[in-house]
Structures are given as C-alpha cells and as structure tokens.
C-alpha cells in the first residue's frame, strides 16, 4: 500500500521531466538510499564479515543501515553465504515477507554462483539468483568489508537513479 504502489497506476503517463515528479523522486530516493535497514540474518562465512562490517571498525550505521530482526521492517537482505537447497525455500519465503520496495545484495561467491561448491555441492544452490532477484553482486570469498561497503554504495547509486515516472529494472 506504499505510496509508490498506489502511484504506479496513475503516473504512467507523466513525462520523466516533470518538475514535481523529479523533485519528489529525489526526496523519495534519498530517503530510501539513506535508511536501508538490513535483515539481521547471516548464512555462513560471509555473515562474519557482514558482522565485522557493521561493528565498530567499519560501522554500517554511518550509512543509516541498522539490522532489524523481523523481515517486515527491512529494506535490504544481504545473502551472506552459501545457499543450500534446504535453505533456498526459506530465503524465498523471507524475501516474500519483506515489504516493497526491497533490495537484495548477494554477498560472496557462494551466493553469486555457488563459489567453491559449484562442482560437487549436491546440496548447494548455485547462485541465489535462481531463487530471488539480486540487485548487487559482491564478489569475494569472503568479500572484505570494504568490498561490501562498495556493494552497498553501488546499490545506493541504483536507488538514486530510480524514478516514479519510468520503470527501471
């Protein structure tokens, strides 16, 4: 029921240059990109790096990213680690439980493509994008905190370029 969803049907016919739409875009995008609440959710090795990133040394709170335990409160989910076939359905469900607009960051090789488990991992899902759509892929095994920050900034850029008027992605 968020504003965006309601507007979806009505603003189709606006040109992208409309001044009201663009300044509205700026505000809404700014708010979305600077308060990306993250799901308190870790899968495997990368989760430790994710924790290290939100801890004192790197401090994700600078970007307004705070971990929330309930999927209803969050904007982004960091798939931090190997997604097994047993877990894949649960991740799909978690993603379904998140309210729109929602974003997914796939952190680390395992969730990008299966990582070191791509060949013999009979229980490993080769890439979380087979289950849920991914916005940003962060490579590395595990990615350093700096790499994760870079990925988050890339996601912020992506959000910054979204618009009410035209549908991107």
């Amino acid at each position: 029921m968020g504003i965006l969803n309601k507007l979806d049907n009505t603003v189709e016919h606006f040109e992208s240059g409309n001044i009201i739409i663009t300044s509205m875009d700026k505000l809404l995008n700014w708010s979305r990109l600077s308060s990306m609440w993250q799901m308190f959710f870790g899968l495997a090795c990368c989760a430790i790096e994710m924790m290290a990133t939100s801890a004192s040394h790197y401090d994700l709170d600078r970007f307004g990213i705070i971990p929330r335990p309930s999927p209803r409160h969050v904007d982004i989910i960091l798939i931090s680690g190997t997604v097994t076939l047993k877990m894949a359905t649960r991740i799909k469900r978690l993603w379904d439980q998140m309210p729109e607009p929602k974003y997914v960051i796939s952190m680390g090789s395992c969730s990008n493509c299966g990582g070191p488990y791509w060949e013999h991992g009979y229980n490993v899902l080769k890439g979380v994008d087979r289950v849920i759509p991914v916005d940003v892929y962060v490579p590395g095994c595990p990615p350093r905190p700096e790499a994760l920050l870079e990925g988050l900034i890339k996601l912020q850029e992506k959000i910054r370029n979204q618009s009410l008027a035209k549908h991107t992605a």
Partner: protein
Amino acid sequence: MAELRTEELTINMGPQHPSTHGVLRLVLTLNGEIVTNVKPVLGYLHRCFEKHAEAMTYPQVIPYTDRMDYLNSMSNELAYVLAVEKLLGIEIPERVEYIRVIMAELQRIASHLVAIGTYGNDAGAFTPFLYCFMDREKVLELFEMVCGARLLYNYIWVGGLSHDITPEFITKTKEFIKYFRPRIKQVNNLLSYNKIFIERTANIGMLPQDVAVNAGVSGPTLRGSGVKYDLRKEDPYSIYNKFDFDVCVGTGEYGTVGDCWNRYIVRAYEMEQSLRIIEQALDSIPEGDVHSAVPKRVKPVAGESYVRTESPKGELGYYIISDGSLNPYRVKARSTSFCNLSVINQISRGHMIADVVMILGSFDIVLGCIDR
C-alpha cells in the same frame, strides 16, 4: 466452571532468528514460557564438505576445511594438515610448528572473542559485542599481515606454511599482547561480572560431567562442567608439550559448575592462557625454512589416520582414509559443535525460552561446523 483447555505451543526458532548463530532451526515445544522439548533441525548449511574432499587432491581440501568452521579456520587447517602429515609420515621443521601454534592460539583468541561478544548480544547487551569485535579486528590484522586474508587463510600447508612470518609480525604480536591483557579485564567487567548477566546465566542449563563425557561434548563446554580435559595437555599434538599453560575449568565462582556462566567464563580465562602460549612461542621461535618439508606431490600410501586437536570450540578430529591415490578416499570431520549441540534437548528442558537462547549461546556453535 468448564475446564480450561490447554495445549502445548510449538514455536519455530530459526533458520532466520537473531540468536541461533546462523541457520540453525530449533523447534520448541512450550508450556507457557517453559520449554518442554527442543528439537534441533540441522542441515541448512550442509555444503557437502566430505563429498568435496573426496573429489579434491589433499592440498586442495585445505580451503574447504577453512570454510567448515569459519570462525577458527587456522585450527581447522591445522587439524586436517596434521592428519595428512600423519598419513605421509613426514617430519616438520620446528619453526613451522612454532608458527602453527602461534596462529592456532591467535585464532583461539579471535574465536573466543566472537563467542563472548555474541553471547553478550544474546543476553541483550549489544555493546560488549562491539568491544569484542574491535579486539578481534586487531587479531585479523595480524593474520592479514602474514597471509593476506582476514577470515579464510589457506595458510597452513601440508608440510609447511604458505608464507613465513616477518620480524614485524613478531613485534606487532607482542604489542597486541600488551594491548589485549587489560582489554580482557575490561570485557569481564562489562559483561562477565555484571549482576544481570550472572542472573541470566548462572544455574541455567546444567550439564553434568557424566552426561557431557558420554555425549562427546568437548572443549570449553566440557571444561565448564569441571572436567579438566584439554587435548593440548592430555594428548599433545604439534609442540604443545613445550609450553607452560593452565587448563581452565569452570569453578562455580558464580552458580554451579556446569551451568552457562561457567561454560562462558572458561573462554574468558582461556584467552589469557593463549596469550601466555603465544608469548612463550614468540620468545623461543627458532630460525628455519617453512617450505623445506612441503612435499612436491602429496600422495600418501594406502591407510588411514585420525587426528584430534583442541580447537577453540573443542575436540576437532579428522578421519582420513587414503587409497594411495592423489585424492583422499574418505574424509570425515568430527566436528565439535555437532557433538556439543546434541545435548541441548537434554539440558534445556524445564527452562524458559530466554534460557534456551542462553544455553545455545554458551555452546558457541558455528553452523558451518555442524552442517559441514
């Protein structure tokens, strides 16, 4: 008055739950707030380690052991490499052994810091968690200095190490020891001896000695029950017999021996002992070449070996069967958390939901280690 109908409530904790330390799922049966049954459901992180090990050559398995228990990669590597070396029957230069011990002990500190920090987080105190992570970051810097990686190192090779340590590493490590001693006290003051924390953990989740031994519980979890059993002393591997350190056991300073607080405090004490070992090792480290014993091709004769080591979480064993080829025929990891976790149902019955969280935290489980 008509009789009230009551029924037990089944509540599903995890796989996404803030305090299951990963993707463990616990199915709790509750009578009000009292837990009547806990059914752990594992396997949400089953990454087929053993299948991979059969498909890889011996050195190629080392990165997978890293990823098994990702909080103490060095100890995992060490255990696996010791098992392979036992199959090969090769002599290791003394310098390598010293460096391995230093790394394993630093890793123990890093792992215990995460254990303590997340345990504080489970209890609702977020600040100690970040304090611990701050110190852990310092250990990771040391690791980064020797092998370039923060979390998964692939540092300990069969017969040697990937890189030698530098004199700078030694000075930095000494600085770290000097910095870290007072920090242990700080964390203890902030968390371990906090009245609320003691109330939450003391006399919760009692694990009697005989149950612990019978269920294969090991490491700080076992020592918290008052069993003075540390493989570094009892069955010394590598060169642990050269160092002087104490085995810490739960003493029942608060609560009773075998409860959550005693399991927790063993870790805090152990960090101090690890510092002692590192100090001794740094002082007496001999010169040598860390690559001299690295075999060109790791191809052991047919046979099998089982090596147990004391990882930060407990007894970590690798059982390797070789059929004389380049790949292991079978590698079975006797993972620590797997055995430690198996007693959870037994000891958390009759406690409250909040206590189950504390009991789970006191085992210091890592799902990568449980599910492999």
